[in-house]
Each structure stands twice: as structure tokens, then as C-alpha cells.
């Protein structure tokens, strides 16, 4: 009797109080997740936050910190242990990205791109050989990957890929230009989407694994961005890039599906990054509200400031619950695209709203680099654009929503 109880209890602990489908996890996280969250928060406070301003000013890739994060296990959260990862779930990944982004948003996106956009499709669509070659070396923080879907001519219109790939004997040859590739200058591999059969339109796109550096592949200049400046963003130019046949990921024509499914999960990562930025901005504003005095009292006593802080907190908390829910649904292997899109939409709009208001609370101090509010404002903006603009998210949500009401 006692043994049975212990087994059930142990299972409950492993699966999180009665199974991953249990939404009581939204109220209190399982112990592993709490410990993981604490580790990431400590790392962010001690290793990332102190250098974030400098990394931003100097556009430096935090190589040392990324290696340390690899040792912590957060560069490959979902990767199974036999491939070098931790074998944890998406809720854990979401918590990790949020806490790290709270310290440094650039580091958050570097971690997110490696986990969701690079390792994600490999885990789902890669063969065993491909996984050994392209996954395991990218779990330690020594190497990071990137995801090349957008082009100068198309972003939201992902089906119009003009980068082409033709088969020549025992090789693929790729030609074209990819744009806005995060991590490009620091990556050792890229997942590149190219059209293999133009007549099939978006069903004629395929995904390829491209090592970096590689003959026939060059990088455009590093974009000079408004925010997340410690992560590199650049074009990837393919000029007769030859790849072995084994570098095709999945089947020919599967590329669009791979991209869309990958972005579904990536949305949870970006939502988490946006939450981290928003939380950092709120922390900054609330702290300031206690200390700054005006008209004889701390400004936190004034309703104008209180209403702002309350709205900020509500925006973050609701976006966080949406994000956790989408992660839990994904972990339970249930459909999660609508919730993930909602999470990304809510979190990114929360990030821009909260960082805007935080700067307002700080007044003049929010506008100068002495305080981190201006960096949060700049970092937040991109979350509404990349990995699916807010407009695309709305389309995704509306489509799935209307399907539910199909007469």
C-alpha cells in the first residue's frame, strides 16, 4: 500500500501533480521547474545583468556566457539526454528564456533561436545520423545554430522563397540570399529554406542543413539594430553553395511545413523573451517608484503611477499565463498553435507597452543610459516583429478561431 502511494507520488512529482495536462501547474510550478527557474534567475542576476549594458553598447556576442549556459543545460533543454541535452519540457524552456532575458534580452534570443529554431526542427524532422552530427555539438554552448527563412524580398510571405536549390548529381546547389538571420555571425550551422520545385509554390520549398563557414556561403554586414544588439543579425548569401544530399532535412517539399511548425514552437520562446524584458522593465519602474520623491512623497504613492504599474503588471501576468498554457499544451502533445500565437502576441505587446510606461515612470532618467529602461524599450520593440509579426499572429489566431466555429 505504501509502495503504491510512493510510486504515484513519485510519478506526480515527475509529471507535475497528476500529469502534464494538469493546469494547477499554472498556479504553482513543479519543484524541478522552480529550481531551474531559480538557477536561471541567479545566473541572469550575477552574470548577465551586470554586463548587459556593455554588451549592448559594444554589440558583443556573449560567447563566454553562452558556453556557461551550455554547461547549465539551457542551450538544449528539450534535447534528449542521449544526444547531450537535458530532456526537459517546453515549460522549463520557457521559464529559462524568460529569466535569462530579464538579465539580457540578447542572450535570451540567442538561447531561444538555438533551442527552438535550430534544434527544434532537427529533433522533429532529422534522421538519427543528422541528429548526431547536427544536434549533439550544439548542446554545449560551444556552437550555436541559426534559422534562415526570411529573404530581402519576403518576410511574412514565407511561401515566396526565391532562394533556389537544384540537384546536381550527388549534391544540392543553393543560390539566393536569406535576410535577418539571428546568430548568423556566430553560428556554426544554419537551417536554410530554398525552393526545390517552383511549380509547387509553397509546397515546393525544402529545408537544408548548411555548415558555417562553408564554400559558397558568405555573410552580409551585421545589421546595426535598435535593440538586442549583442546578438548578430545579417544576410546569408548563397552563391553556388554545394551540399551533400544528406543535408536535406526531411523530405523535398516539406520545407514550408517544417518552417511553420518550427515557428509555432519558436513563438513560445519569443513570448518568453518578451516576458523577461517586460518584467525587467517593471522591476526597474517599481523600484524607482519607491525611491523617487516628488511633491513631498515617493511617486509610488501617486495614483497616476499606481495605475500605470497595475496595468503593466496585469499585462505581464496575463501574457505569462498564456505562454505557460501554450507550453503545457505543447508538452501534452495537444494542438497549441492558437495559444502560442496568442502568447506571442500578448507578450510582445506587453513588452512594448510595459517598457514604454516604465520609461514614462522614470521620466528623464528613463531616457538616459544610466538606467536600463531605455535598453528595455529598445529591446522590446523587435518582439512584435520577428518570428511572425503581430499581424501574422492575428491572422493565425483568427483562422484557428473561426475553424472552431465552422458551421
Amino acid at each position, binding site marked *: 500500500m505504501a509502495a503504491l502511494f510512493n510510486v504515484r507520488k513519485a510519478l506526480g*512529482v*515527475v509529471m507535475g501533480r497528476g500529469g502534464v495536462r494538469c493546469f494547477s501547474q499554472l498556479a504553482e510550478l513543479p*519543484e*524541478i521547474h*522552480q*529550481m*531551474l527557474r*531559480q*538557477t536561471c534567475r*541567479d*545566473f541572469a542576476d550575477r552574470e548577465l545583468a551586470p554586463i548587459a549594458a556593455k554588451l549592448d553598447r559594444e554589440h558583443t556576442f556573449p560567447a563566454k556566457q553562452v558556453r556557461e549556459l551550455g*554547461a*547549465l*543545460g*539551457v542551450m538544449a*533543454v528539450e534535447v534528449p*539526454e542521449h544526444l547531450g541535452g*537535458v*530532456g*526537459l519540457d517546453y515549460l*522549463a524552456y520557457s521559464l529559462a528564456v524568460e529569466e535569462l532575458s530579464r538579465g539580457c534580452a540578447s542572450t535570451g534570443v540567442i538561447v531561444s533561436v538555438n533551442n527552438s529554431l535550430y534544434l527544434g526542427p532537427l529533433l522533429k524532422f532529422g534522421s538519427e545520423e543528422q541528429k548526431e552530427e547536427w544536434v549533439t555539438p550544439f548542446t554545449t554552448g560551444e556552437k550555436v545554430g541559426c534559422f534562415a527563412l526570411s529573404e530581402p524580398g519576403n518576410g511574412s510571405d514565407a511561401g515566396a522563397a526565391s532562394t533556389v536549390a537544384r540537384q546536381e548529381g550527388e549534391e544540392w546547389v543553393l543560390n539566393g540570399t536569406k535576410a535577418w538571420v539571428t546568430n548568423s555571425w556566430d553560428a556554426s550551422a544554419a537551417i536554410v529554406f530554398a525552393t526545390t520545385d517552383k511549380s509547387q509554390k509553397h509546397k515546393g520549398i525544402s529545408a537544408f542543413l548548411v555548415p558555417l563557414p562553408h564554400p559558397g556561403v558568405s555573410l552580409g554586414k551585421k545589421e546595426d539594430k535598435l535593440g538586442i544588439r549583442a546578438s548578430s543579425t545579417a544576410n546569408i548569401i548563397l552563391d553556388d553553395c554545394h551540399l551533400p544530399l544528406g543535408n536535406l532535412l526531411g523530405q523535398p517539399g516539406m520545407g514550408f511545413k517544417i518552417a511553420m511548425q518550427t515557428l509555432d514552437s519558436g513563438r513560445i520562446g519569443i513570448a518568453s523573451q518578451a516576458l523577461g524584458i517586460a518584467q525587467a522593465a517593471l522591476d*526597474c519602474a517599481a*523600484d*524607482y517608484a*519607491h*525611491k*523617487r*520623491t516628488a511633491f513631498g512623497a515617493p511617486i509610488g504613492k501617486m495614483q497616476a503611477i499606481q495605475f500605470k504599474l497595475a496595468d503593466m503588471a496585469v499585462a505581464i501576468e496575463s501574457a505569462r499565463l498564456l505562454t505557460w498554457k501554450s507550453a503545457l499544451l505543447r508538452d501534452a502533445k495537444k494542438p497549441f498553435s492558437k495559444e502560442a500565437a496568442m502568447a506571442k502576441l500578448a507578450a510582445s505587446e506587453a513588452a512594448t507597452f510595459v517598457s514604454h510606461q516604465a520609461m514614462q515612470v522614470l521620466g528623464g*532618467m528613463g531616457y538616459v543610459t*544610466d*538606467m*536600463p529602461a531605455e535598453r528595455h524599450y529598445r529591446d522590446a520593440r523587435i518582439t512584435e516583429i520577428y518570428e511572425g509579426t503581430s499581424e501574422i499572429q492575428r491572422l493565425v489566431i483568427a483562422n484557428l478561431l473561426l475553424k472552431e466555429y465552422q458551421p
Partner: protein
Amino acid sequence: MARVLVGVKRVIDYAVKIRVKPDHSGVVTDGVKHSMNPFCEIAVEEAVRLKEKKVIKEVVAVSCGPQQVQETIRTALAMGADRGIHVEVSGKDYEALGPLQVSKILAALAKKEEAKMVILGKQAIDDDCNQTGQMTAALLDWPQGTFASEVAVEGDTVKVVREIDGGLETIKINLPAVVTADLRLNTPRYATLPNIMKAKKKKIAKVKPADLGVDLTSRVEVLRVDEPPQRQAGGSGTGVESEECTDTQEGLCLGDGPNQGGPVSHGDWDKPEPEPGPEPLCVCDPAPPVSTESEQWDTVL
């Protein structure tokens, strides 16, 4: 082969603003964030390093308290301890638990587990007692190396460099011994995800103080708990010209007024002054004491 017992205490997190209960019987702990005492983290780290150097074979983490201390033990397991012991103490007994009772428990466990060393944090950041290590050593009749900033096991002895008021003191003590960790002993590692996962599988044994023959009766009664006095604004004085005014003159320089200078730099927590209090691991800690000439090698006790 050698086994080390490490005591870990669950305390209110160092970054939390402490509030006194309205009835002044103690501080508010309900719903307040708790974590492992920072000096205990350093103690665990040192024990795990000794295991990695293959000087000792097993690290056993011990904590006394209610169900929640298991989180603290599990953090120790995630840092590399091999197994845990949860000494169940709850309710009024837990409120009255102090260094005397804990040291009796640790002494009993050290004997039971045949430990070669007991490593503790030098003090806890909630009560600042700095007594448990010393009492445990006395109860066991073992030598002690307290305020350790360096620990080196050499065969059957331990060389301990201690941070004392006058500088650094090096002593050599025989095993088995009690060592208490000071701030600069090491930098505790992060609990990595793989280790957090592994910690789930490590065992935590439960034991009651009565099973160890320990009487928990306290000889101390807390009468009242109050907050430290509120920070006073500086005053404006008359008469001292700016050239003669130095910072050390207590707030009587011209121009000193309340809330001078706007906001404090981001991240600094407002603490009422004077602040003798708890020891977070802080950059503003004084520089380590300079080593004195006379490094004595004493075989103590």
C-alpha cells in the same frame, strides 16, 4: 572511506525585505521567499569539491525543520551532494530551534554516519548566531576550523586558513573535525539542469530528533522582535564652513538635507542605517585581510 556531513539551513532569501509580525513575536515568514543560507551554499560547494578531488567519498546534506526544508536539501543534492537527511522538526519546536539543538542533532548524526568532517556555514543570515559549528565541535570533542577561507585536507589532518580580525590565521587540525565556511572560501556553483534532474533520484532520509536522542527544549525565550530604528534624515547644521567640513562629521555639514540627490543607483536596496546585519554576498564586502607575517602551524587539540 571518508564521509562529510554538510548542514544546510533554509532561511528567508537575502534579497527579501524583512517585515516584523504585528504582534512582535517574530518576522513574517508565510509566503515569503526562502532559499539556502548563502554560507551553507559555500559549505556544500566545498564538500563537493573535496569529493571531486577524491579526498572524501560521500557528501551527506542535512537540514532540520518542516517539510519545506526538503527543497533546501534538494538544492544541495543538485549541487552535488549524494544523499540527504531531513530531521523533522515543526511547529513550536521549529520556532524555538536554535544552535544548541541543531548542534546536538548534528553531533548525533555525525557519530551515526561516521562522518570524518562536518562542514557548516559560519553563520545563518537570519539569526547571525555563529554558534552551531563551534557547539557541534565541542559536543563531539572534535577540533574546529571556523571562518575558513581555505581548506586543505592532508592525510589525517586539515590545514585551515581562518579569517580573523587581525588577518589570516593558518591552523592544522586533526580529523575528524568541524569546519565552518566563510565568504571567500569558494564561489558556489550553479545547480545545472542535468544535476537538478539527477537530484530527483537521490534519496532523502527522514529522521526525528527523538530517534537521535536529542531533547529540543530551548533555554532561550524570545520576548520581542522589533525593526531596527528608521533611517533618519540628515540635519542641517550651523556654523561649519565647507572647507572644514569632512564627511565624517555626523550630518552637520551645510547643505545636507533629506532626499538629497534624487534616486539611488539601480539595484541598491534601501536599508535603514546603521546596518550591522545579515551578510549577503556583496561586492561592497571589505577586501580580504592581508596575510600576517606569523603563519603559525599549530596542531590544535
